[in-house]
Each structure stands twice: as structure tokens, then as C-alpha cells.
């Protein structure tokens, strides 16, 4: 899929900006807007320089109205544009739920294919950044539950770019969740050329034989640290980066679990009715007879993410993941 040779060191912010830049240049129908995304380039600077480059009618600041941002995007998309909108923080997306769930996710079905809503809804999500209330939640399961939406979460700059290109080119509405905790924490070489990673394909990051660990977003880095501890303890871990929450890559999950016989899912979001529960059921349906231990969910608690002084109680550490790996392997 990699097309070129012009490599550049990028963090996730750079990579997302680069993907937006490539697509804005390529397709006049693409419009980028949201709160503070124009002049300021977004509170995380993800859209920096884009307004200067593409003009105020293509990259601009929206009024402070999440429902309005999402709702106008539905109208623009029905009329033929391809809006990419930003929710400043995922914790502020709730006022836009009616527009996303009742309209963006349904317009094609409601109109029997007459209209479609190729919208990308970008939003930084997740905790661990010492933020105010409503700036730390992970609600991917809420979106994953809505028929008509696709939900994508990258864990590296490279994937962030490739997945965003696919999201922008999709004719479905894509919820693109950005793990803000690792926005600038991971740097890697990424080509400046265009490439895409298909939505719905997980990535086996590390091959292993004893246990499968499935994670995504900022949790990948924590699992990778846990894998170092596991290796010292003589445990071989296979790590799957889910990359897409919906549609989920069932085959990659099943192939791995059938090989290892053990599975742990790590998510930052609350446990009940979450992605880890969904994966557990997929494993039960597809790989029941291969299991040597009960599938395990390592997740946030069913609580509100605590404010910074208490957040360490909530966030999942590499040590905790290793603890669960060891228990599952020894089951």
C-alpha cells in the first residue's frame, strides 16, 4: 500500500494534518470545519496551516455548536460535499448525537440510497492528559453500537494517516477517534505520499503463541510495555491492534485466538457492554473449542473518569496488563 519514498518523521498530529492536506488538495468537495480549527488550527493544532493553504471557505471555524456542526455536515453531504468535522473533545460530542445517530447514520437507508453522508467526524478521545472533566472519556462502544456508522481508532502516526485517507474516501459516515494521549508521544517515519489502510482490517503488531492481546489507540503502547515484562517471564504474546471498532476484523481475531487459545482485550473505556465484551462473544462464537482460559477484559471501570488527582486509579498500566496476562496463561 505504501506508494512512495519521501519519508518524514511524523507524530500523529503531523500525520493527520498530512492526510487532511493531501485530501484537501485532491478533492474540492472536501470541507474542514469545527471549533477553532481555522485560524488557530485546532486546540491540538491538527488542522494547522490548512486554512492559509486552502482558504476560509474550505477550512474554517464553526460556531460553538456541536449539533450544528454535525447537522450542517449532514446537509452538506446530502448536497454532494464531503465534510470533515472536528468535535473539539469527544466528551463534547453528546449534543451532536441526534444528528450523528438519527441522520448521518441513517440518511442512505432512509432515502433508499438516494442520498449518502460521506462525513468524517474527528474527535480526540481518552484520558491520561491531566484534563478537566469531560476531556478524558472513551466512548467508542457507543458509536460501535449504532447501525450505519464506522468507527476507526489509530495507534500510530502511520496508521493515523492511512486510516484517515480511507475514512475520507468512504461514502459512509466514519467516526475517527484520535488517542490524544499519544498525539505527540510516538514519532515514526511516514511517507509524505498518499496511501491508505482499509477500514475493517486489524493489524497483528507482534506475533506470539501463548496469549492474544487485543487493544487499540493509546492502549497499544501500554500493552507493548507489558509484553516486555511478559517476555522476561517467558510468555509469548500476540498483539493485535484492532484499528477499526466497526466493522470489526473478526477473522484476524479468530485466527489468532485459535492459535493461542487465550485472549485478553484491553480498552480504556468502561467495561460493561463495551468493545471487550463484544470481542469476548466473537471469540465464544468462533473459537469456543479452542479456548484454554476464559476470555479476559482489562478495561476502565464502570465509573466516570476521575479528575487528574485520581486518574491514576483509573488508567490501565502496563503492569496491570502483565498481571492479567500471567493469570490468563496460568489458568
Amino acid at each position: 500500500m505504501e506508494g512512495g519514498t519521501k519519508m518524514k518523521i511524523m507524530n500523529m498530529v503531523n500525520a493527520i494534518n498530512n492526510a487532511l492536506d493531501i485530501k484537501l488538495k485532491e478533492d474540492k468537495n472536501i470541507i474542514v470545519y469545527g471549533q477553532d480549527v481555522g485560524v488557530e488550527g485546532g486546540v491540538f493544532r491538527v488542522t494547522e496551516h490548512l486554512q492559509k493553504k486552502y482558504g476560509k471557505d474550505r477550512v474554517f471555524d464553526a460556531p460553538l455548536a456541536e449539533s450544528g456542526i454535525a447537522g450542517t455536515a449532514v446537509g452538506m453531504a446530502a448536497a454532494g460535499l464531503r465534510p470533515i468535522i472536528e468535535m473539539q473533545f469527544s466528551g463534547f460530542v453528546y449534543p451532536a448525537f441526534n444528528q450523528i445517530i438519527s441522520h448521518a447514520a441513517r440518511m442512505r437507508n432512509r432515502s433508499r440510497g438516494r442520498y449518502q453522508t460521506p462525513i468524517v467526524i474527528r474527535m480526540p478521545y481518552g484520558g491520561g492528559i491531566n484534563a478537566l472533566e469531560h476531556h478524558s472519556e472513551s466512548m467508542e462502544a457507543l458509536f460501535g453500537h449504532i447501525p450505519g456508522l464506522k468507527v476507526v481508532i489509530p495507534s500510530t502516526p502511520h496508521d493515523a494517516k492511512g486510516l484517515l485517507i480511507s475514512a475520507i474516501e468512504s461514502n459512509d459516515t466514519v467516526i475517527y477517534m484520535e488517542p490524544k494521549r499519544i498525539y505527540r508521544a510516538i514519532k515514526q517515519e511516514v511517507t509524505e505520499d498518499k496511501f491508505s489502510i482499509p477500514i475493517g482490517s486489524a493489524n497483528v503488531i507482534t506475533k506470539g503463541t501463548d496469549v492474544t492481546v487485543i487493544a487499540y489507540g493509546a492502549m497499544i503502547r501500554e500493552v507493548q510495555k507489558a509484553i516486555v515484562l511478559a517476555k522476561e517471564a517467558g510468555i509469548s504474546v500476540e498483539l493485535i491492534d484492532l484499528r477499526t471498532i466497526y466493522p470489526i476484523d473478526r477473522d484476524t481475531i479468530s485466527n489468532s485466538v485459535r492459535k493461542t487459545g487465550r485472549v485478553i482485550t484491553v480498552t480504556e473505556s468502561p467495561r460493561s457492554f463495551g468493545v471487550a465484551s463484544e470481542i469476548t462473544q466473537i471469540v465464544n462464537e468462533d473459537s469456543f473449542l479452542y479456548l484454554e482460559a476464559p476470555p479476559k477484559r482489562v478495561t476502565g471501570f464502570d465509573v466516570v473518569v476521575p479528575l487528574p488527582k485520581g486518574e491514576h486509579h483509573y488508567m490501565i498500566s502496563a503492569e496491570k496488563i502483565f498481571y492479567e496476562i500471567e493469570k490468563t496463561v496460568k489458568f
Partner: protein
Amino acid sequence: MIIMFKEYDPIKKKMFKIIDDDGNIINKKWFPELSDEQLLKAYWDMVFARTADLQTVNYQRQGRIYTYPPNYGQEAIALALGAVMHENDWLVPAFREMGAYLAKGVSLKEIFLYFMGHEDGSRFKNAKNILPMAVPIASQLQHATGIGYELKYNKKKDVVFAVVGDGGTSEGDFHEAVNIAGVWNVPVVFIVQNNQYGISTPFSVQTASDGIAIKSYAYGVKGIQVDGNDYFAMHTALKHASEHARKGNGAVLIEAVTYRKGAHTTSDDPTKYRTKEEEQQWEVKDPLKRLKAYLVTSKKLKTTNKEEEKIISQYKKEIDRQFVEAENYKPYPLDDVFKYMYEDMPIDLQAQKMEHEKFLKWKEVRK
């Protein structure tokens, strides 16, 4: 046209009217430029729309369709809208705009199909630039503002007409949509059908504001309060509002004051929350009666009662023909439940469908 917005500036609390309750012209200056042929077409279109609307309520009573929200008493608004709209203009409807649907090219059969509970009613085979009905109240107004952005962005000369009821103006989406349309200076004409009730809730419970048109001030857009039961006033107001928007001067908020003579939907019983006296007060303002009175007084309508009855019975036959067509519409295939959710059906969804098909096969064998 700015003059009209000045003369009827909402701050003056002056409702825009052209004919009185008896169909006499009281405001000649703003009488729309319509040929006799157009005037008669307006009348017969309204007769047709009312006949179809009342007939639809009958079908519901016969158990042949599900819930239906009647247009009865409010027809002038949608009919004037239908007459003013250009071919490429967008219609973003609420759900009481049959006249505008028909003018757009939506068939009665499609309208029936929708209220029989079939998405194919929103295919709009012969109509363009019309969104399907949006049930969550006022949410559609945001789409109108977004479409307006597309028109402006691509330098098109079309206009969006977006409709909402008085209850809908209490929703946050109303505020956001009109506010953003003001900021973006997009060509959207917002039409509030103020029919005095949101189901059973009277207008006085929706807002302490002195009407809706005045709210245009807060959004920096033009506004006007219009007698929604006066076909000519609606025609002129919509015409001027749309030309204002078409020329790039921004959005307009029209409050069309009307009365919902029928129930909210066929599941509703208005006798529980409004009086006979009130209904009678509004009866004299009926839009069809007033339009007819004007046409008869001005000797433009020469049809005898007997001839009119004959025409209406022909309409009924046509309405019934389309209704029966909708009743005999092809069965709803299982495929259609799944195939429009995504551009390409996700593997997991395909699996869900196959699993169900296996069950159906099993059921067939079991018979």
C-alpha cells in the same frame, strides 16, 4: 424587496396579509403577479391537496395506512411554497407539506407508501433536491443550513426552503440552524408553520416571545410574520424571501400563522385540549375558503358547485388509484433491510443476514 422586509419589520408587530377573511384584497400593493391561469391552478391544486389529505385520513380510519399527520387548514403554506420553488431549489420538509411535495414531483403513491410504512416512499423517483421527512423535530433545519453552504460554496443560484412547526422552534436545533445560517450568510428560507399547537401543547407554552418572526433579529437575518392562511400573502412573502436569498443576501425566517384544523396525527384527539369556539374562530380564516371567495368575487372562478363536485370526484378517483397502487406495491424483500446501511455491506452484517436466511429456510421446511 428589501422594502417589504422594512414595511413588515417584525418589530412593528404587523402581520403581512393581502386578502381579508372574505377574500377581499386589502393590500393591493403586494398582490403577487399571477396570471388568471396561475390563480386557477393555485385553487385547483389546493382543492386537490385538501381532497387527498382528507381522503388519507379516511384510509387511516379504514385501517389501510398507519399514523398520518393531516395538513387540513394549513394548505396555503405548502401550496404557495410549491408555486414559488424553482426546479433546482431544495425542499427540506417537516411533515405537513403535501402541496409542496406534489409540486416537487413526489407522487401521491410515494406519500401513501411512506405512511403505509415503507422507505421506498422516500425514493422520490421523479423529484430532485428534496430530503425525506425527518421525524426528530427541527433537526432537519441544520441540514438546510448545510445544504445552503453547499449552494453558496459552489456559487449556485438555488435556494433551500426548510419547514418546521411552532413547537420545533423550542428545540436547540432551531436556534443553531438559523444562527449558523446567519453567520454563514447562506440562501435558506426557514418557514415556521405556526399552527398554534405542538400536538396538544399551545404556542403560549412554547415561548414567551411575541411570535417567531421577531427572533430573526437575534440571528441577524430577515424576518416576517405572514398570515399563513392567505395564499397570496404566502406567495409574495416566499417569493421575496427566496429572491433575497438567491441574490446572496442571506437567510430569511418566515412565520406563517395558521391553524391546524385537523388532529396532530390520526392518533390524536384535539377535543381533549381545545374548544369548539376556538375552532370556529379559525374556521372563517380557512385558506381554501378565502382563496375561493377571492376567485369568485373577482369572477375568475366560474365553475358551478355541480361542476366542482364532479371535478372533486375525479380527483378522488385519481387519489384512490394511486392509493391502490401503493397498497399493491411489491413485497418488502429482506435484502432491503440490510443493503442501504453501508455502501458495501460489512461482512458481519452479511453474516447476520445469512443466519436469518438459514432460519427462514428451516421454517419453510418445517411447514
